[in-house]
C-alpha cells in the first residue's frame, strides 16, 4: 500500500458513521451505440421482438429479486424495485424504442441507448432535486434491459469482510444483488442526498459518502480507505496515525450510536406505565430529520422567527405557507406546535422598526405587536391554517399576560379562517390553540386561561427571568437566574395542576424540559410533554424509562417542601448521580 499515494477527498456525507476497510471498485460497462443500421423488414421484426423479450426478462429478473429479497429487504428498497418494474415496462419507452427501430432502422441496442439517454437528460434537467436523482433509476433500468438484450450475465460480487464499495453510482438493484453484509461503507463519484446510494445506506445503517467527484475513480481495488459518513471525507491509503485516530473515533461513535439507537423506538414510559411525550424545539423543516432520528414524539416548539430574519421585507402568506407546510410534511403526522412570531426590541427585524426601548423584555414584543399590527398577524395565521392541511399543526401564542389577549388573538384567528373561507382556500378549521405560559400573571391565573385554550406550554426561560426579576443577559446576576427557585417551581406546579383540572394538555418548551436534573421533578408534577433540543431527548428518555411515576411524585413532594434552590439542586444532583 505504500506504493499508492495518499489522498483525501471531500464528498457529501449522507449516512453517518466511520468505515475503515479495503476498496472494491465497481466499474460499469458503458452503453455504446454501434451505428449499425438494420437491413430489411425481417431484421426490424426481429429487433422489435428481441427488445420485447429483453423487457420481459428484465421484469422477471426484478420480480425474482423482489421475491428473494422480501424477507431481508427494507420496505423502501422493495418500493424502489416495484417502481423499477413499472419503469422497465413503461409504454412511453417501448413506443419510442420501437419507433426508432422501425422508422430509423436502428438496432434494438442503439434505439434503447438513445431513448434512455434522452429520458435521463429530461430528468437531469429537472428543478426538483428528488426527480433529478431519479435519472439514476432510468440509467439503471436502461442498463438492465440492455444486459438482457445483449444476453450478458449478471455478476453478483462476493466481498470480503470490511469491504468499502467504490462506484460511479449505486443502483437499487446493485445493493440488493450485492452481498451487503460484508460491506462497511459506500463511496460514489456521483449522487446526492436523495440518490439511492444515500437512501439505502441510511436504511441499512452503512456509512456513505456520495458526490465525491472524479478523484474517487483513482482508487484501486484493495486500497485502504477511511470513510467518514458524517463529514463526507474519504481518505485513500492514509497514514497509520490517521487510521488509528479514526479507529478510536469509530469506537466512540459506535458506543454513542448504540446507546441512542437502542432508545430511539422505545416509548418514554415510566416503569409503572406513565407515558411522557418527548418533543423537540425546531426552527425549520430541516430540523425534523434530527427529531425523528432521536425518536422525538413531535415538536413542542416550532420557532417561526427564522422565516422573518435575514431578509428585507415581511414574508408573504405564500412564502410562510410553504415554510410551515414543509415542516408539516416532514413531521410524519406528529404534533407540531407553531409559535406565532416572537420578536421585540431585543430580536429586531431590519425591515420592521421597533424603536429602541429601555426594557425590551418588558416592552413592545411578541403577541403585543401581533394584536397591534393585525395585518401581519392575520397573514401568519392564514399561512399556518393552510399548512395545517398537511400535518398536525397547532398554534401557540407567546407572551400572554391576561385573558383579553387570548380572546383577541382567537378572534383574529377566526377572522383569518373567515378570509380563507371567503377565498375558497382549504385550511384546518379545528386547529388546536394554545398559549405559552412565560409571564408570572399567566402562570398564576392558569385556572382562568385554561378555559380559553386547548393546551399550555410553559416557557421556563422567560418565566424564570420575569418571576425572579433577573435579566438573562446580565452577567453580574446570572447566579440569581435559577429555575429551581421555589417560587418558579410553585408557578410551574400550579400551571400543570390547573391544566389537569381543566383537562387541557400541559407541556414545557424551555431549557428546563431538557435538563436531566429536572426530569423526575417535572414528571412528578404531572408534566405531559417535555420539549427540548432533539439531541437531548435520549438522555431524558433514559431517566424516564428507569423510574416510576410513584418515585417521581415522591421526589416532587420532597422538593416542594424544601425552602431553597440550594437544597433542591443538591438533592436532585444526588438523585441523578
Amino acid at each position, binding site marked *: 500500500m505504500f506504493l499508492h499515494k495518499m489522498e483525501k477527498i471531500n464528498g457529501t456525507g449522507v449516512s453517518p458513521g466511520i468505515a475503515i476497510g479495503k476498496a472494491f471498485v465497481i466499474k460499469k460497462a458503458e452503453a455504446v451505440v454501434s451505428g449499425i443500421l438494420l437491413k430489411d423488414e425481417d431484421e426490424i421484426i426481429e429487433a422489435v421482438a428481441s427488445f420485447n423479450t429483453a423487457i420481459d426478462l428484465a421484469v422477471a429478473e426484478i420480480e425474482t429479486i423482489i421475491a428473494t429479497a422480501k424477507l431481508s429487504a427494507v420496505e423502501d428498497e422493495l418500493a424502489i424495485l*416495484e417502481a423499477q418494474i413499472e419503469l422497465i415496462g413503461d*409504454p412511453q419507452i417501448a413506443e419510442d424504442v420501437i419507433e426508432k427501430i422501425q422508422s430509423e432502422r436502428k438496432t434494438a441496442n442503439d434505439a434503447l441507448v438513445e431513448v434512455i439517454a434522452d429520458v435521463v437528460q429530461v430528468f437531469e434537467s429537472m428543478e426538483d432535486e428528488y*426527480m433529478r436523482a*431519479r435519472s439514476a433509476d432510468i440509467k439503471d433500468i436502461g442498463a438492465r434491459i440492455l444486459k438482457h438484450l445483449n444476453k450478458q450475465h449478471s455478476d453478483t460480487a462476493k466481498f470480503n469482510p470490511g469491504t468499502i464499495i467504490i462506484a460511479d453510482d449505486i443502483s437499487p438493484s446493485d445493493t440488493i444483488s450485492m452481498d451487503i453484509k460484508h460491506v462497511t461503507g459506500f463511496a460514489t463519484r456521483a449522487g446526492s442526498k436523495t440518490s439511492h446510494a444515500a437512501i439505502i445506506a441510511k436504511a441499512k445503517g452503512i456509512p456513505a459518502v456520495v458526490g465525491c467527484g472524479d478523484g474517487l475513480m483513482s482508487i484501486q481495488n484493495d486500497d485502504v480507505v477511511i470513510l467518514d459518513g458524517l463529514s463526507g471525507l474519504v481518505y485513500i491509503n492514509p497514514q497509520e496515525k490517521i487510521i488509528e485516530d479514526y479507529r478510536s473515533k469509530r469506537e466512540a461513535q459506535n458506543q454513542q450510536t448504540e446507546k441512542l439507537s437502542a432508545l430511539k423506538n422505545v416509548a418514554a414510559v415510566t416503569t409503572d406505565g406513565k407515558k411522557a411525550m418527548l418533543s423537540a424545539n425546531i426552527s425549520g423543516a430541516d430540523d425534523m430529520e434530527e427529531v425523528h432520528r432521536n425518536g422525538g414524539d413531535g415538536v413542542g416548539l416550532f420557532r417561526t422567527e427564522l422565516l422573518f430574519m435575514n431578509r428585507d421585507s415581511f414574508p408573504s402568506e405564500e412564502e410562510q405557507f410553504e415554510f410551515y*407546510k414543509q415542516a408539516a*410534511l416532514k413531521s410524519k403526522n406528529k404534533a407540531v406546535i407553531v409559535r406565532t412570531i416572537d420578536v421585540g426590541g431585543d430580536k429586531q427585524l431590519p425591515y420592521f422598526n421597533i424603536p429602541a426601548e429601555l426594557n425590551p423584555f418588558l416592552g413592545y414584543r411578541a403577541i403585543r405587536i401581533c394584536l397591534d399590527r393585525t395585518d401581519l398577524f392575520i397573514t401568519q395565521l392564514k399561512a399556518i391554517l393552510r399548512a395545517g*392541511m398537511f400535518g398536525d399543526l397547532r398554534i401557540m401564542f407567546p407572551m400572554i399576560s391576561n385573558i383579553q389577549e387570548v380572546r383577541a388573538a382567537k378572534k383574529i384567528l377566526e377572522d383569518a379562517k373567515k378570509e380563507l373561507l371567503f377565498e375558497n382556500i382549504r385550511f384546518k378549521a379545528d386547529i388546536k390553540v394554545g398559549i405559552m405560559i412565560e409571564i408570572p400573571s399567566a402562570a398564576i391565573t392558569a385556572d382562568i386561561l385554561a378555559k380559553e385554550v386547548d393546551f399550555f406550554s410553559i416557557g421556563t426561560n422567560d418565566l424564570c427571568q420575569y418571576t425572579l426579576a433577573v435579566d438573562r443577559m446580565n452577567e453580574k446576576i446570572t447566579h440569581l437566574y435559577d429555575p429551581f427557585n421555589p417560587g418558579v417551581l410553585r408557578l410551574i406546579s400550579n400551571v400543570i395542576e390547573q391544566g389537569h383540572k381543566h383537562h387541557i394538555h400541559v407541556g414545557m418548551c424551555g431549557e428546563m424540559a431538557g435538563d436531566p436534573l429536572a426530569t423526575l421533578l417535572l414528571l412528578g408534577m404531572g408534566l405531559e410533554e417535555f420539549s427540548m433540543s432533539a439531541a437531548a431527548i435520549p438522555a431524558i428518555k433514559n431517566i424516564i424509562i428507569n423510574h416510576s411515576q410513584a418515585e417521581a411524585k415522591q421526589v416532587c413532594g420532597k422538593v416542594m417542601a424544601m425552602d431553597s434552590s440550594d437544597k433542591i439542586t443538591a438533592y436532585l444532583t444526588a438523585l441523578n448521580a
Partner: protein
Amino acid sequence: MITKQYTITAPQGLHARPATTLIRLVKNFKSVVNIQKGGKTVRLNSMINLLSLTIKGGETVTVTIEGEDEINAAEALDLFFAEELKDL
C-alpha cells in the same frame, strides 16, 4: 368523460412509490386516464411521463377518465387520492 380535480395529500408528492401504485391502479381499467398539471397533460400509463410532471405535495391536478368503465375508475381514483395516497 369524467373530469376530476385532486389535491395531492402525500407529503412527498407523487414520487416513485405512489406513482407506481397509481399507474397500477389505472391499469385495472379499460378507460383512458389522463392527468394534467400546469397545462401539461400525460396519459396515466407511463411512470416516466407521470414522474416528469413533478407533482408535489399540496399541488392540484386534473384527471380525466374516459371509457366504458369510467364510473368505476373514477371511484377508484377518488379513493386513491382521498385516502390511500396520504399513507404512501
